[in-house]
């Protein structure tokens, strides 16, 4: 009796298997429909805009659209010697159109990014081109300025032909593409971004370490104390957690200022003299201290929830089998808390790496992070494509840690108080 000729049927005669599958599918659709509104909302207002950032960061259509004829005619030019007459002619007509639309200034700014020296020769060309005669544009343009007869400048124009570019990403890593198309580092004294990336990693790493060192003992205490005491102490962890970030930063600004309480205390115990107070704010120290305190609850909570599940009898068993309390702790207790350590450290690191508000207020020049640089380009230089590029570089780092977190801890296991 094989299973094929002995199918189980439901009351209306369909095979059970088919009927079950149908029900299953219906349930799947039902569940998905519940999630759909939020998913759609997040995709439209959040995921797409991040995609838009990606487009902005590589978008280089501006010059391409300003010089359409030139780039068309440049397709046959090999870039070895000066371009042929057709290119000059096309460039002349593109340029005349830009003058009509009063956009030649934008072109000169854009080309100047690629190669210095375009600004003045475009201005000169604009003046002289009014009196150009028809035909033989090559001679006439080259006569305007000797740089127009320099093949390097034409190569620079050609380099802007593609509608997409990864220049902004290179800039974010203090690199650029030189005339020959090689990727090289910028001069040593102008490498600002690499310092920022390294500092961001450094601060995030040490803040994570400090948080871990401080959170471990108190999480242990909270997990082992009787409920009525631990509930009270838990408030000390949760109150900062629920308090506005700006309030907590403000309190550090008061504490760390030169006439502040911490300095008063140092003077009182004779650590420093009154006229030699330590500068703890507007530098790295400020970022470290404030960020550690602000992120500490995010380390305590996952550690606590793991430690809570460890039975105290395990430590007793370890001791009764001959281990000293230290060995019992190290060999039995500590390994059991590793999931909590992983969860806490990843969470704190991920939050620290993108911190903006606190470093901006107490970090000064030496304690700011990459986020501050992104905000600077968004608000001050208005180089939005560069801000987008740096944002995405930061995002890719965060997503790697997020993926790791999801693998190790599971995203639905995030503990919130």
């Amino acid at each position, binding site marked *: 009796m094989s299973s094929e000729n002995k199918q189980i049927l439901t009351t209306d005669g369909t095979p059970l298997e088919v009927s079950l599958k149908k029900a*299953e599918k219906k349930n799947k659709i*039902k*569940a*998905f*429909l*519940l*999630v*759909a*509104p*939020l*998913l759609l*909302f*997040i*995709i439209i*207002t*959040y995921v797409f*805009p991040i995609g*838009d*950032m990606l487009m902005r960061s590589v978008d280089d259509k501006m010059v391409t659209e300003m010089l359409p004829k030139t780039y068309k005619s440049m397709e046959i030019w090999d870039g070895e010697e000066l371009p042929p007459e057709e290119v000059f002619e096309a460039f002349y007509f593109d340029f005349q159109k830009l003058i009509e639309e009063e956009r030649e200034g934008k072109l000169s700014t854009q080309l100047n990014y690629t190669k210095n020296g375009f600004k003045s020769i475009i201005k000169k060309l604009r003046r002289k081109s009014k009196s150009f005669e028809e035909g033989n544009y090559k001679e006439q343009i080259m006569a305007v300025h000797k740089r127009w007869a320099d093949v390097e400048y034409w190569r620079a124009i050609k380099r802007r032909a593609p509608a997409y570019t990864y220049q902004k990403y290179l800039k974010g890593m203090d690199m650029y593409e030189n005339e020959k198309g090689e990727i090289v580092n910028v001069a040593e004294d102008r490498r600002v971004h690499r310092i920022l990336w390294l500092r961001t990693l450094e601060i995030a790493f040490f803040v994570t370490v400090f948080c871990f060192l401080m*959170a471990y*003992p*108190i999480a242990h205490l909270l997990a082992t104390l009787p*409920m009525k005491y631990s509930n009270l*102490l838990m*408030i*000390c962890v*949760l109150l*900062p957690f*629920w*308090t*506005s970030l*700006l*309030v*907590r930063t*403000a309190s550090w*600004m*008061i504490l760390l200022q030169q*006439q502040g309480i911490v300095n008063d205390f140092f003077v009182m115990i004779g650590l420093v003299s009154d006229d030699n107070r330590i500068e703890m704010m507007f530098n790295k120290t400020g970022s470290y201290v404030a960020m550690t*305190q602000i992120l*500490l609850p995010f380390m305590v909570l996952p550690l606590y929830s793991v430690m809570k599940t460890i039975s105290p009898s395990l430590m007793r068993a370890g001791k009764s089998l001959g281990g000293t*309390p230290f060995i019992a702790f190290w060999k039995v207790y500590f390994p059991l808390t590793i999931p909590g350590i992983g969860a806490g450290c990843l969470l704190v690191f991920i939050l620290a790496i*993108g911190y*903006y*508000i606190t470093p901006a*207020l107490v970090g000064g020049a030496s304690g700011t992070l990459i*986020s501050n640089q*992104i*905000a600077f380009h*968004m608000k001050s230089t208005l180089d*939005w494509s560069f801000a987008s590029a740096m944002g*995405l570089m*930061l*995002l890719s780092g*965060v997503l790697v840690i*997020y993926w790791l977190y999801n693998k190790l801890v599971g*995203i*639905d296991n*995030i503990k*919130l*108080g």
Partner: protein
Amino acid sequence: MALPKYTETHYRIWHYIYLTICAAVFFFLIAPLFVIFPLSFNAEEFLVFSDGMKRLDPDAFSLRWYQDMIYGTKNPWGLAAKNSFIIAIFATIGSVLLGTVAALGLSSRHMPYKGLIMAVLISPMIVPLIISGVAIFFFMAKAGLAATHTGIVLAHIVLGTPFVVITVTATLSGFDHSVTRAAASLGSNPVNTFMKITLPLILPGVISGGLFAFVTSFDEVVVVLFLAGLENTTIPIQMWTGLREQLSPTILAVATCLIVLSTLILVTAELLRRRSERLRGINQ
């Protein structure tokens, strides 16, 4: 945590060192918040404890900064508080509605691609705020919603829903689905079952998610900095501006009010958490 009598001396010493370390860390966590209280009652304009305050001289304390906060002529706190509450309330309603419904779907064992979808829905909580700020700003500018309340509310719904999704799915993880099946077998339709059976049981989770969403919106400054115009200023924006320019005692008065508010929210959240655990039969 009394030590047993037979504990050897060096472990005893170590134990006291451990307790001291814990006390220091707790102090580090909570003490900074308490500096703000007394200084907000300072009669003088400086942000240090005056000699009078150290002597507890009553004349050294005053409510002038609170008066300034409420009645001050050029003070933007009134408008900011109004905006903050309006934005936070609408953002909370939006987050709770979308988040709770989504959590119901995510908790179903039939949900396809659960991990991936969950990761997408939680991402606004994980992605650095500065990146969210830039991305949402581009979107709102295109949609013509920059510098409007609507735009900020929508942005805060994005940032608030992860908290609702997490708390409600956590509550639903201990949910006994046989009660909804029982309701269905007794002739209740799904909507009725949800309103009468499921919602009352998961309500603590929903409310605590809502509190998270409220606080997220109420405290949020990075995204608002990109989106807000002069009309949409909020308390965090005003504090941010104040802290950057000049740390005035009025800010400390506002900060004190915020600490009181967060204490109230914390107490509510804790009571709800305990009630939820009791309801779900998790014994302490």
